């Protein structure tokens, strides 16, 4: 036979014996399944423990409160999740949201029309997203970190500049206040907004070709080019949708507070990135689904709420969420290693 056999895929020594390897495979696939279920399990456990510690936690009023407080993070995290799927990041979402509320507030000064104000906020969000996407792709920037950091600063500054008195402006059309603040059958209306956005994005991401392309671009950017996927367009679209989600978040937040403010959405970029990562999406791109973003958002909401109920310092909340992010990213690393193990075992079994 030929002496040019090439390198074998790295087979771990001693893992080739049939019985042991099949048991090992079972353990690895169990581990992988647990990791994929992890965030949801943790959320359920967390809720149960907190429910035992503080009876007020599970009361309908409080749960509805959590949903309302989580709505903005959840909506914006849905957009962030699409960006992260393509190995990107959108740091501008918080400032984008603030600018959108300010522009909505200015439009409200001119015309007390809910559709007009909503349209203005959504367009503002989309415009910022489009700038992020096109500057990243056509400016050939090494990483979206840079452009979205720039637009974070620009949007925040612009919002402060444009806002009358450079601060919070009271007043929103009644319809918007209803969307953001009121409840239907005890469920906050903002929850229905989250549900609607999630349903539409889920449909687009899982049932449409566009969604498949997002996963392809995030999974293997080089291969996506070779397979003829319009990578640039796909990348830009994720930033546009992320901007749109920031605009929708602006409508909800402005509605809940019946105000617009250049100070809104402070550190929202961190909350949304944390939500996506905590929820179990991979920071390395290509893996994760919308449920991850939602679970992560709710988890952040639950932790904040519980620590509030327990009377824990707000600073400790930040520390706690920081720790959880580390755990979540470690879980992602562990998953990648387990997958590599599974691959090696597969090679050992078939050869």
């Amino acid at each position, binding site marked *: 036979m*030929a002496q040019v*056999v090439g390198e074998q895929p790295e087979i771990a020594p001693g893992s080739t014996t049939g019985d042991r390897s099949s048991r090992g495979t079972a353990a690895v696939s169990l581990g992988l399944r647990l990791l994929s279920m992890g965030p949801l399990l943790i959320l359920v456990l967390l809720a149960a423990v907190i429910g035992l510690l503080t009876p007020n936690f599970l009361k309908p009023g409080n749960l509805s409160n959590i949903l309302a407080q989580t709505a903005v993070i959840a909506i914006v995290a849905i957009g962030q999740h699409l960006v992260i799927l393509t190995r990107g990041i959108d740091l501008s979402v918080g400032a984008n949201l603030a600018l959108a509320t300010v522009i909505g507030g200015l439009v409200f000064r001119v015309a007390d029309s809910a559709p007009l104000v909503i349209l203005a906020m959504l367009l503002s969000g989309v415009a910022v997203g489009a700038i992020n996407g096109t500057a990243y792709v056509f400016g050939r920037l090494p990483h979206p970190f840079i452009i979205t950091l720039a637009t974070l600063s620009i949007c925040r500054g612009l919002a402060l500049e444009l806002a009358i008195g450079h601060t919070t402006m009271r007043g929103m059309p009644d319809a918007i206040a209803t969307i953001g603040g009121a409840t239907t059958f005890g469920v906050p209306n903002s929850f229905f907004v989250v549900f609607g956005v999630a349903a539409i994005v889920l449909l687009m991401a899982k049932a449409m070709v566009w969604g*498949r392309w997002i*996963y392809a671009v995030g*999974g293997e950017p080089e*291969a996506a080019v070779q*397979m*003829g996927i319009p990578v640039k367009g796909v990348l830009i679209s994720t930033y546009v949708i992320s901007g749109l989600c920031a605009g929708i978040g602006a409508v909800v937040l402005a509605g809940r507070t019946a105000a617009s403010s250049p100070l809104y959405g402070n550190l929202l970029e961190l909350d949304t990135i944390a939500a996506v990562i905590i929820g179990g999406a991979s920071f390395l791109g*290509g893996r994760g689904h919308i449920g991850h973003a939602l679970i992560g958002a709710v988890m952040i909401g639950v932790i904040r709420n519980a620590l509030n109920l327990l009377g824990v310092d707000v600073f400790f909340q930040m520390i706690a969420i920081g720790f959880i992010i580390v755990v979540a990213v470690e879980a992602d690393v562990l998953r990648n290693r387990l997958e590599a193990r599974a691959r090696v075992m597969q*090679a050992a079994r078939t050869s």
Partner: protein
Amino acid sequence: MSASAATSVLAVRHAQKRFGAVHALKDVSLEAYSGEVLALLGDNGAGKSTLVKCISGVHALDDGEVLLDGEIVSIRSPAAARRAGIETVYQDLALFDNLTPAQNFYCGRELAFPAWLPQGLRFLKSAAMDRETAAVLDRLKVKLPKFDAPVALMSGGQRQAIAVARATVFARKVVILDEPTAALGVRESRKVLDLIAQLRAEGNAVILITHNMEHVVELADRAVVLRQGRKVGELKPTRASQQELVSLIVGAEA
């Protein structure tokens, strides 16, 4: 000129390619015929991969032309190459680890409806794609541990088989394979060689890049040798000419 072009599926004429100071292709011409395996040989840096990338739309030629079925075509992107009927199995496989075999098969040319929408906004026909992929893998006797698992969980040989099988589905004229057995063991290589033979039997023009002379002698109908960006020889590889081929590759006059 046009008379000889009529018989070949793919012809490259006087290809020139530079990357800055590096002259990667110097006036290279070759032809590939249907139902034939053409081995493209050369040492590392000889220009094989560059030539292949120029044919498959990754790079553009600085000068020279590519003819498909005797007509000059300009292939500006990998997508255009695929549309023209040229399939490439890249050395890095261009597989998506996070997608299943079926999703990999159709990535970039998904079966979707309705036709009046732009491709990106159409809805996936997942069941049809799964069915087609399963049928193709079955026909090529490729066995996978799990059909609906991401290919990240599959072995090197299985991944290679998926990449080659993907090319067989869509190839209409030319299939290019860039070192398809480089990372495989003996048994897995055998499987891939069988797949290549099958590609040829189905009437494709197959261009095979490999360093393995055994494979060349066994499978290739013709061999073109490149050295330092230049075509230095073309012959029919046999046991007898194997030594001559090696000399051409390394540049020693035998």
